[in-house]
């Protein structure tokens, strides 16, 4: 198999994986029970999706400079999303947004 087909196939697989993680992150943001869990979904799953997408693009990069620029974009996105998630959580704490606790499981009377 030629190198190009291999690279394209790997890029496609990485892109699909990235799309899956993005979808999972969005689903988590919509369906998790409170703000703090939703921020986990955004900061972790979306960042991993972005990392996989950038890895796919790195395989297709034309030059080292292009690859370095992609890496810089990824580093900036990771730092920004982590900081923003922290700031949002701090804001929610200041506004006394209640933290979701798992509902108690009632033991059956013996």
């Amino acid at each position, binding site marked *: 198999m030629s190198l190009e087909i291999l690279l394209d196939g790997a890029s496609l697989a990485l892109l699909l994986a990235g799309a899956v993680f993005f979808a999972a992150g969005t689903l988590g943001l919509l369906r998790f029970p409170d703000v703090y869990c939703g921020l986990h979904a955004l900061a972790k799953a979306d960042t991993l999706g972005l990392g996989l997408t950038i890895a796919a693009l790195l395989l297709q990069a034309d030059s080292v400079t292009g690859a370095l620029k992609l890496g810089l974009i990824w580093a900036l996105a990771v730092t*920004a999303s982590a900081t923003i998630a922290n700031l949002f959580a701090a804001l929610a704490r200041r506004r006394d947004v209640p933290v979701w606790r798992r509902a108690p499981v009632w033991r059956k009377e013996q």
Partner: protein
Amino acid sequence: MEASLLLDATLAALIAWTAWQSVTSREVFRAVVLFIVFGLMLALAWLRLGAPNVALAEAAVGAGLTGVLFLETLGHLRRRKTVEPPEPAAARALRRWGVGAAVMIAGGLLAVLALGLDHGGAVGVGPRILDQQDETGMGNAVTSVLLDFRGFDTLLEVVVVLLAVVGAYGMAPHGPAMRPPGVPREPRQPLLRWFVHRLAPVGLLVGGYLWWIGGEAPGGAFQAAAVFGAVYALLRVTGQESAPPPQGVAMRLLIVAGTAAFLLLGLSMLAAGRAFLDWPAAAAHGLIVALEAVLAASLGACLMTLVAGVPRHESEAP
């Protein structure tokens, strides 16, 4: 249906949907966030149309900086406790669907007209511009159009930004009890300071890179100025003392410098016996690069001034 057509159709539908939601939303914060998303979708659409320069400008200015200005205004409104009267459900449905239907009908008519236009086999100006690009010495056709062939339009754009700054200050109340704008807020969180400490130099570097690369690749003065304005907005939010308040003679000179330099260069061409804003082919490259530098700095100063806001009364919170 091939994949790119599907992608374009989805993008067009998303653009229309976010625009509709943003315009008809009662919560202002929701409207602003949807407006920012709409700007990003538009940038994607420009990319699909093969216009990376416009996409950069749309993302930086339309979505980024305008979004920041909207959010600051929203914060100001919230502190003054502006309250919207409640709206009955029937009136709300009528308003939203009425606006949506009207826009869809108008947009549909426009699309039908545009697609049915017969341009008689004309190819447009593109090939001619590419042929004559050697006159300008620029590798980027868009920059040569913006700053050489259609320099007059760019001059008017720069004047518009200057007028925006003058207009914003003109509408502000003035008097002895006014506090000058741009007073930094108190830093609230150490993480934010840490982040901005590291991001601001990178942001300045990105802005400088966008200005420099504008000659050969998508970029240019407006995009660089938008990035500088964004860096300033970040610095203000964290209360860094390094955010210069847009007062003082130096700042005002910088704000006017873009328009002044553009006009002076154009008039000097007149004095040299050429047409207004008609650069000679030998000196065009140097002139355009120098002009872009002054424009980037000046437009950055204008956008910083808009981000910092206007003088406020002492009793109001910053």
